[in-house]
């Protein structure tokens, strides 16, 4: 699994929780909230889906690490590797 794979996972989750958004133009280096209509409840949804689907925990102090796809990749990649999540 690569950081790019992690970004795809996060983008898929965003697609589920914000189904009205066009995700094809999302720039991975920019803040997600600056590009998409996402609020604090949506970020909690991302955290919950990571927990439910992959058993990955994001402590509250680290929520800011999910601000962009790039930062998600950096922050979550080691967690996915530690969990040994295999891509289907």
């Amino acid at each position: 699994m690569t950081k790019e794979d992690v970004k795809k996972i996060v983008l898929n989750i965003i697609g589920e929780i914000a189904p009205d958004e066009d995700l094809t133009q999302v720039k991975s280096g920019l803040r997600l909230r600056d590009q998409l209509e996402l609020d604090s409840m949506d970020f909690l949804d991302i955290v919950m889906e990571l927990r439910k689907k992959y058993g990955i925990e994001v402590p509250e102090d680290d929520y800011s690490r999910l601000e962009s796809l790039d930062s998600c990749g950096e922050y979550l990649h080691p967690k996915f590797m530690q969990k040994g999540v295999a891509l289907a």
Partner: protein
Amino acid sequence: MEDKDRIVITGVGLTAPNGNTLSEYREHLLAGQGNIQRIPMRYMNEVLAGVCNFDTNKYQKRKEVRNGTRAGSIGIYCTREAITNAGIDWENVDKSRVGVYVGITEHGNVETENEVHNISQFNYETKYWTHHHNPRTVANNPAGEITMNLGITGPHYTVGAACAAGNAGIIQGAQMLRLNEVDIAIAGGVSESIQSFGIFAGFKSQGALAEHENPNQASRPFDSSRNGIVVSEGGALYTLERLSDAKKRGAEILAEVTGYCMNSDAKDAVLPDPQRQAECINKALSMAKLPASRVNIVSTHATATPMGDIQECQGLRNVFQNCPNTFFNNTKSYIGHAMGAAGALELAGNLSSFNDNQIHPTINVDKLDPECELDNLVLNQPREGSNIDVILNNSFGMLGINSVLIVQKYTA
């Protein structure tokens, strides 16, 4: 009474199992077409239910639907339809002078049941409990979702009144207009109850859940073989205005709210009291300054429980003796019991009688229960009325809550 104290209905938005507009609903009621289905239900295999099929995405983004509740979606759909029906220039309405008063029988059971089921998949660890649970289950939820969708900044709340809630919402709206708290009231009731197994299981344990091999014959008020309630979802919300405001904007007036009453049996949790129901009807008639004989249509509450129907008929016989021009009907026989929406939806089912002079019947009565006999009970076939101008709408609920609403055809 001055125009500023007269409250009129200027729009209606609804979704029922057999119609998503007033005209579609009316057409199906006059044609004797109900719509009850057998649906899967958690822990219960299958149950009979009335299911609505309105387009949730007509007025909501998909994310709104996902994050909100079914009751909220029903409320938003009905509100938007009512405003359009009323011809209100919504862009130019002062949203701080709009109030939202939504009757509910219960709220929150659906989400709590879903979350308990959800965490059961994770060994009951509560860290999997959704953060959406609380905004979805606060008691003001359906009314609050309406305000968020439409940008309404006036007051909003739900009126919890068991199955009398539809009338209660309308009464609350009329009162707030009379108090000049708002200029437009969005008022009526909604129900999402078919999403909750607990509602069905509770009625089943009470011996009050209907069963029939033909779903559309399961809800059969007044029939000798009735065996309980068919639970349904739905909603009906009205735009209410003071007559003075409605006239000012040249609104078409669908009806005038002239009388209402709510009271309590103070007796039994589930068995209705005919004496208190009759008192409630008489007080509403007194407010409307009408003798019972002036009522053309009594829209009964009867839910098809063995005792409830008998009790209501007793109360009605007490009030409507020697009233040859008063007809009785029932709408639950088509759509089941829409709980918090029932009163508001059943009023809507009869409202068009002011224009077409038709009275839709109570269907599914193969053999009338002698204890439910009423003079002029309209059975199985519509009746032609004459100059129908007064409708009295009964709606009663558990814990002995009674509501009666009287609407009249508008005359200047």
